[in-house]
């Protein structure tokens, strides 16, 4: 057993991170959410379109074809590598129907290369329906919502799609990346912002918020990576519960550490929180995961034969 990243996996993660910093850094993120000069206030800004050039670049880098076999033009890697890439996407707050397009690679023409943007019904929602070239799942009767997340347009559908564990795992990976990012943002702010003559990070109340954030990240990370290795639906359900929690509570705590600044549109914290909320709505939801994991306890007791 060697439950650590291999050198190749480290290199892959670094490569994706570098690409995203270059192509979707802070300025691009802000340009996507901030209204052009003189147009309305932040909260009411219309969602910008999807960056097709970036989408194709992601395709070229193998983001969508990562798990497609090489003989079919893919990169031929596995779930652990996909999870690392999606963790980076979550960290960067990369917008778009990433999971749906990734899952469509090899099935929907052009998805693997980023030529085609694919949306899908996930739970009772569809992200980026109007921007998509192809849609998977039944979207008849879809109703547009005024999405809380400025970078994720949403439609609600009457008939939920059956749950897909891989989609749930990739969502967990994005949540993990977001949680790691908000922890880092909080720590950075706590080190530099001064009150009462010292950095606020020297106050235990702040310090303890930050360390709890890290603990949630690390526990979620172990669960998400393990689920990527085993591919087991119950491992995935557990990982998802912990990653959703780490992302949502992490963003809240990060906002708290930022004080008034955290409540402004200018700070990125709310973008993480809103995205975490919308990702948490994907798939079946926490109740179903908890029920499945509860049933597993009875089943495993039966297996142990006691």
């Amino acid at each position, binding site marked *: *057993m060697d439950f650590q990243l291999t050198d190749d996996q480290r290199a892959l993660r670094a490569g994706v991170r570098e690409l995203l910093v270059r192509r979707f850094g802070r300025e691009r993120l802000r340009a996507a959410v901030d209204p052009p000069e003189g147009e309305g206030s932040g909260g009411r800004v219309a969602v910008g379109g999807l960056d097709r050039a970036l989408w194709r670049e992601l395709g070229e880098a193998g983001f969508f074809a990562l798990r497609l076999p090489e003989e079919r033009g893919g990169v031929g890697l596995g779930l652990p590598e996909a999870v690392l890439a999606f963790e980076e996407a979550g960290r960067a707050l990369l917008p778009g129907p990433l999971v749906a397009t990734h899952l469509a690679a090899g099935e929907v023409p052009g998805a693997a290369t980023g030529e085609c943007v694919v949306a899908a019904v996930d739970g009772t929602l569809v992200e980026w329906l109007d921007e998509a070239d192809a849609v998977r799942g039944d979207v008849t009767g879809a109703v547009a919502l005024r999405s809380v997340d400025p970078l994720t347009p949403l439609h609600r559908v009457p008939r939920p799609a059956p749950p897909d564990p891989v989609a749930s795992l990739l969502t967990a990976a994005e949540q993990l990346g977001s949680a790691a990012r908000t922890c880092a943002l909080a720590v950075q702010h706590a080190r530099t912002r001064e009150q009462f003559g010292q*950095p606020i990070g020297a106050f235990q109340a702040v310090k303890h918020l930050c360390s709890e954030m890290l603990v949630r990240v690390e526990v979620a990370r*172990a669960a998400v990576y393990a689920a990527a290795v085993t591919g087991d639906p119950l491992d995935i359900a557990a990982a998802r519960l912990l990653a959703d929690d780490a992302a949502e509570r992490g963003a809240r705590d990060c906002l708290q550490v930022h004080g008034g600044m955290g409540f402004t549109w200018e700070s990125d914290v709310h973008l993480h929180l809103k995205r975490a909320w919308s990702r948490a709505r994907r798939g079946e939801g926490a109740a179903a995961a908890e*029920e499945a*994991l509860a049933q597993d*306890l009875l089943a495993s007791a039966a297996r142990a034969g006691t």
Partner: protein
Amino acid sequence: MDLSYSDEDEEFRARLREWLGEVLPGLPPKPSADDWPARRAYDLGWQRLLYDAGYAGLHWPVEVGGRGATPTRHLIFLEETEKAGAPYVGANFVGLLHAGPTIAAEGSAGQRARWLPPVLRGEEVWCQGFSEPDAGSDLASLRTRARRDGDDYVVSGSKIWTSHAEVADWCELLVRTDAKAPRHRGITWLAMPMDAPGITVRPLRTLAGSAEFAEVFLDEVRVPVANRVGEENDGWRVTMVTLSFERGTAFVGEVVACRRVLGELAREARKNGRWDDVPLRRRLGRLNAEFRALWRLTQWNVSESERVGGVPGMGGSVFKLRYSQARQELYDTAAEVLGPEGLDLGREWTVDRLSSLSYTIAAGTSQIQRNIVAERILGLPKGR
């Protein structure tokens, strides 16, 4: 990332399982919680069985009587013994899990030869004399003092909350050897024989009603200078090694135990009708996620220490913070499942619920662990 075990590891697991299947049915019944001499005999007897079968000190270096096995194999050992319901380390806790590893890492060749084999063979029990009435979280403010007198240190002061002190042969003891030096600089780590004249042990009752720990009074106790591990006044550094073992690996087997208890809880709920309570059932499901993740974190930390080698890192504090909380939630949920019987001290889960309260205190409180995570992992400034 790989969670599969090698063929050799799987063979090891199979042999161990077989051995456990043979020896466990023949073990004497567990002694009562208050009968310390009987508990000592029971725990040492189990250790001796392990030793004779070649399972003692699996991950300790070969030179000190260990087996030099990988941390992974040690993990398999902990997993399988716990799954099979084998006895807990009990009175051997300090010797096996932190004093022993500290001596293996920091002791001289002679010290390793003197102290380590008896721990592995189940002949000697250790206790930990760190805390004092006025020095708990603020361990570096300890006042028990030692002055040199020829080849001995002469030690006076008192220790508190010393687990297993009543039945221990040795104590890993922190003393102040230089009162004028800065707090962290004047401390020395000694191995004190518990039968030396001048030692008085006064048992303290825990909130669970048992005599788990004690107060230890030291009145001019002579400890040979040869029993010093590390240099004089360099004990704080040695202590950090001890604490990292205590936090890093000491709870591994317990995570497996908690997963077993969780399965039992679900079955109990099914039997007594509480399973139909949806919020309670969902709580059990979430605890399943929690303990699965803690087990994965354990595998992660073990793999990391296998790669890096040596003393476990800061990950121990991260683990301890979450585990101590999860364990308390587990037994609070047990009380929910039991209903009124959750107030019955005749139920094992009620007693375990009481002892779970110590997990956020012993081996460094959660507040102190959060400070460690914030300052040493996240790099936040130290408070004034």
